[in-house]
């Protein structure tokens, strides 16, 4: 009832003339008047989130005010995306931040992209930086009606192209220079994807925290929020090594988002919650479980026929942070059936402690291990003796003793871990994945990835 009521209020506000300020004192929220009505569900969800976490104050202090009425909408794969310019707090500031929203059928992802992040990305990938920064200049012209310092000019949609038969790209053609002697700075298309290739920290998961990045359910919103801060790009590492795999997963934004969704569910655990997860195929298709119970879940066998799996993740809502013995048997079975894309495969268990992930770093060894897991009862005894060790150092011991088990069995698997950490305000963050090792006595350490 409240949702419907609030939605109506928001819708009404959206139909009003566009606002001139950035903050609505009465609503204690951003000024959203004049916003595209398609943004209303998002705005209402953010409003609800702000009612419980008051992220607006932090957001405004850090980035400024979103100019909802200047939002740019564009289709992207399975989502409808919006780029909302954020006006900085300084009077003469250009647009320095853009808030992106990707609206899917049952949830919305959002994240902030700042010029600072763009500059860092440019430093990492080289080039003139226009590809990374053009949208700030675009919005400086379109929303603030001001000439950006870069002097960039844009012609919209001149290069609208087709990515596929069903998808249209929205692009601008950028120029700079003097009238009549403009330099062509290329065609740039709206997307929410390319700028996250930077090695950003994992976005904040769970309840609480501020709200520059996160996800929103279409129902009552889950947690999420908090700034995604950029860090230095990783150094070149052997991509097949545990360090390389950890780096690769940490740069996989789609994976991070999905892990965060599972993690959010685990953080908000209620008795009776069922397991959840996904399988991703080498073709990029996500397969959802067809059966979900409190302590198990299954996929339909037919959905996996002829598929190579690159990701298999599931959660233990109230259970251990590492795979159960049947989890290992399922993994071994998939391998023996030829269903695993070994080079690109990762297997994850998401618990309240974080995301425990295994990658195959020696297929030769893993092949033997898989055979033993399925046919040698001794492996189960080893697993039991592993589980018998007490977790003297919490999650670190639990992970370390599992690593000891894998090493003793010469499994060909390496362990990566994305740890949960909690801040004073109740926000939960998942770190980037780190390659983990153990000393054989449940003593955990990080691989030296430098």
């Amino acid at each position, binding site marked *: 009832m409240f949702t419907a009521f609030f939605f109506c209020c928001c819708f009404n506000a959206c139909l009003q003339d566009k606002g001139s300020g950035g903050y609505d004192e009465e609503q204690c929220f951003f000024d959203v008047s004049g916003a595209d009505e398609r943004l209303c569900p998002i705005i209402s969800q953010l409003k609800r989130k702000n009612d419980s976490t008051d992220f607006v104050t932090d957001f405004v202090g850090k980035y400024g005010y979103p100019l909802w009425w200047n939002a740019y909408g564009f289709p992207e794969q399975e989502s409808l995306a919006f780029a909302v310019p954020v006006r900085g707090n300084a009077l003469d500031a250009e647009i320095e931040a853009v808030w992106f929203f990707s609206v899917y059928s049952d949830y919305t992802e959002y994240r902030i992209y700042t010029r600072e992040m763009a500059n860092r990305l440019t430093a990492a990938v080289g080039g003139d930086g226009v590809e990374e920064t053009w949208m700030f200049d675009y919005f400086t012209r379109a929303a603030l009606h001001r000439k950006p310092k870069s002097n960039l000019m844009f012609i919209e949609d001149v290069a609208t192209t087709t990515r596929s038969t069903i998808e249209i790209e929205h692009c601008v053609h950028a120029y700079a220079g003097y009238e009549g002697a403009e330099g062509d700075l290329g065609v740039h298309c709206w997307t929410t994807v390319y700028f996250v290739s930077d090695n950003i920290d994992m976005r904040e998961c769970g309840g609480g925290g501020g709200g520059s990045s996160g996800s929103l359910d279409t129902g009552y919103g889950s947690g999420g929020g908090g700034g995604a801060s950029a860090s230095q790009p990783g150094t070149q590492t052997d991509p097949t090594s545990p360090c390389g795999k950890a780096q690769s997963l940490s740069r996989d934004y789609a994976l991070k988002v999905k892990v965060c969704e599972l993690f959010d569910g685990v953080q908000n655990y209620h008795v009776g919650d069922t397991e959840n997860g996904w399988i991703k195929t080498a073709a990029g298709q996500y397969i959802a479980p067809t*059966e979900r119970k409190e302590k198990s*879940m299954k996929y339909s066998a037919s959905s996996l026929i002829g598929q190579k799996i690159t990701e298999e993740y599931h959660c233990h809502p109230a259970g251990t942070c590492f795979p*159960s013995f049947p989890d290992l048997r*399922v993994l071994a079975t998939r391998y023996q059936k030829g269903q695993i894309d070994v080079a690109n495969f990762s297997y994850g268990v998401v618990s309240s402690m974080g995301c425990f992930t295994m990658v195959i770093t020696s297929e030769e060894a893993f092949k033997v291990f898989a055979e033993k897991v399925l046919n*040698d009862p*001794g492996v189960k*005894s*080893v697993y039991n003796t592993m589980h018998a060790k007490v977790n003297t150092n919490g999650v670190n011991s639990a992970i370390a003793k599992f690593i000891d088990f894998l090493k003793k069995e010469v499994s060909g698997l390496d362990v990566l871990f994305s740890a949960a950490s909690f801040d004073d305000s109740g926000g939960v963050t998942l770190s980037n994945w780190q390659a983990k090792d153990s000393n054989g*006595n449940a003593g955990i350490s990080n691989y030296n990835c430098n």
Partner: protein
Amino acid sequence: MKRIGVILALVLTCMEMFSQANYDAFVGTWVYQKNDTVFKIQLQKGIIKFTSWDEYAIFGGYYLSVKGMVKENYIKTIPTTWNGSTHAPSCNIYLYASSDTPNYLGFTFYDQRMQHINGTGIPGGKMNLIGSDKLHWKLNEEDGLYVMLEGSGEDMTPRGFSVPIDVIMTKE
């Protein structure tokens, strides 16, 4: 600074020494008696032979009588080594335990009456030495079922144990 380093090294050495399991302290027969119920376990040191390595462990058996009637008697001659790939009860081993922490053992228990997980044993048991002659025995069916059955789709309804699940035992 050098002195601090030496002290730190000594502390770490001591921590290392005391972080080893003290299996000897667990060896023997332990008894719990209340009213007409007598529950005993017998523990001895052993070695589990795995494919490419050995695990030092504790092996044991158990006994239960109620009102003078013997309900369970699985205290038998226990071998000093056990091939971890074989069925432990067939070697007179009804629990096997291991640890790397002093005064603590985690163990897998083979309840011959309840036959958890098709008789293949249920992990999750814990024994804490709370004195030279006092042992805290605790079984955790939920934990054991979780790590052995989660994801399998098999029935994980607890069926209980035929022996006490949380008692203080005294060394005989």
